[in-house]
């Protein structure tokens, strides 16, 4: 089912929150440099899929291969070192750390990450506020910081959960520009996004989720043909 040259391949992934069975055999794959979006209604398991891939959900079965490595066997703190960065929905900015400390927190896992200068060129606001308390930043700046700190580390795959949620249109546009820039640099991105209009402008490929499963996947150039299905499932 998964393509042979995939960077990440997920097969028959099941996951549970306690007794509650949240993922029922998710299959998806991502080629190197691809920008893939998981779409679906609230509660179908999009966030759960990201959390199961990075290993925050330990009660999981199935197969997870990243860059030839078996993620199922790794303890949580080893997963990032295979080259996966996670940007959670709640952003996870630390209140007891300054902006710069937040930025420098995740360990470098591979060479090839952005330098501090490149990051500040991409996110000038962060440089101005580097000594502020992390949570004093606006929502948009916190989202930028949550993404920026992963770019330093040399990860090859970014798991981005709802980066535009609750942000003003001008900030959403800025995040879109950043993602285009990251793609140009060869970053692979798995994006969970409610804002379908936003996702449709930047994604190469879509995976549609319903009831804890992927029920359709198609490349961006088939989007027109698939709009009926998406209307039906998503109500967009």
């Amino acid at each position, binding site marked *: 089912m998964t393509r042979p040259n995939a960077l990440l391949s997920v097969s028959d992934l099941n996951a549970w929150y306690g007794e509650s069975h949240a993922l029922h055999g998710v299959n998806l794959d991502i080629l190197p440099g691809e920008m893939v979006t998981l779409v679906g209604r609230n509660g179908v398991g999009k966030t759960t899929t990201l959390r199961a891939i*990075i*290993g*925050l959900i330990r009660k999981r079965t199935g197969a997870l291969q990243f860059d030839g490595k078996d993620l199922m066997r790794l303890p*949580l*703190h*080893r*997963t*990032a*070192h295979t080259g996966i960065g*996670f940007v*959670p929905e709640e952003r*996870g900015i*630390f*209140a*007891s*750390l300054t902006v710069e*400390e937040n930025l*420098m*927190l*995740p*360990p470098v*896992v591979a060479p090839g990450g952005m330098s501090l200068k490149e990051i500040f060129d991409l996110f000038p606001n962060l440089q101005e506020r580097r000594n502020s308390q992390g949570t004093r930043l606006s929502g948009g700046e916190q989202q930028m910081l949550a993404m920026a700190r992963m770019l330093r*580390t040399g990860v090859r795959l970014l798991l981005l959960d709802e980066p535009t949620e609750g942000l003003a249109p001008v900030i959403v546009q800025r995040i879109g520009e950043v993602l285009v820039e990251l793609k140009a640099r060869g970053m692979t991105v798995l994006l969970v996004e409610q804002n379908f209009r936003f996702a449709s402008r930047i994604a190469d490929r879509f995976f549609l989720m319903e009831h804890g499963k992927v029920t359709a996947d198609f490349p961006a150039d088939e989007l027109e043909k698939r709009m009926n299905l998406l209307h039906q499932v998503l109500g967009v």
Partner: protein
Amino acid sequence: MTMIFGIPIQAFLGQLLVGLINGSFYAMLSLGLAVIFGLLRVINFAHGAQYMLGAFTGYLLLTWLGIGYWPSLILVPLIVGVIGLLIEKFALSHLYSVDPLYGLLFTFGLALVLEGIFRYYFGVSGNPYPTPDLLAGGTNLGFMFLPIYRGWVVIASLIVCIGVWLAIEKTKLGAYLRAATENPQLVQAFGVNVPLLLTLTYGIGSGLAGLAGILAAPVYQVSPLMGSNLIIVVFAVVVVGGMGSILGAIVTGYILGLAEGLTKVFYPEASSVVIFVIMAVVLLVRPAGLFGREEA
């Protein structure tokens, strides 16, 4: 004779100094407790026993091996710290997945076992630990006589507290510790070995208790019960300062030591309860403690 508020100034300053010395131990011990509680969410009831273990380790190094005070100042925290590492690695770490009460009960049991062992071998009477020659004697400050060793305790405790605080606030390891205190799972998902960080933190917290123990050995008697006498006060300090607040633990330790000393001057009968009265008032007015953050 000079008087202040109707009290001879010598008595006043003397009690203030006693308060400051007690406060130095409160601050060092509550600091370790606060660091451990902040990251591990374990209320370390063994902290008093680890302080006692520090004093006894120093005492045994001296009587069995002839190792004196100054090498002990390094060796004792290392030994007690390594014992702490082992306790976390082989026991405490298995209790994180269950109710936090189990951690409390385990460390409480551990404290009783440690105290029991030392009571069995050494009895309950204290053993004297000689003041090191360099710090023997005293100096006349004009208004009072200051035993040099007690002055050293105050300075050493300040150095330790400020040093630990700087390490937590200004270093990379400290940033990991602060971040993991807020959200350990996310920090681990970033690739930081949080289980190792927990082990190290418990080791360092235990080592701090051991260091306080060897510093206390020449001041108080080295006795199996020295820790349990102190630990309840230290818990009050941590509660007043705010559970898990590093700065709160340090500042409150000194303040409550001084408050206790002052109460001895003005109303000696209340001196043993004043800390708990303050704790009760603080809990009523600010349940999160003076420096604590209300948790969402």
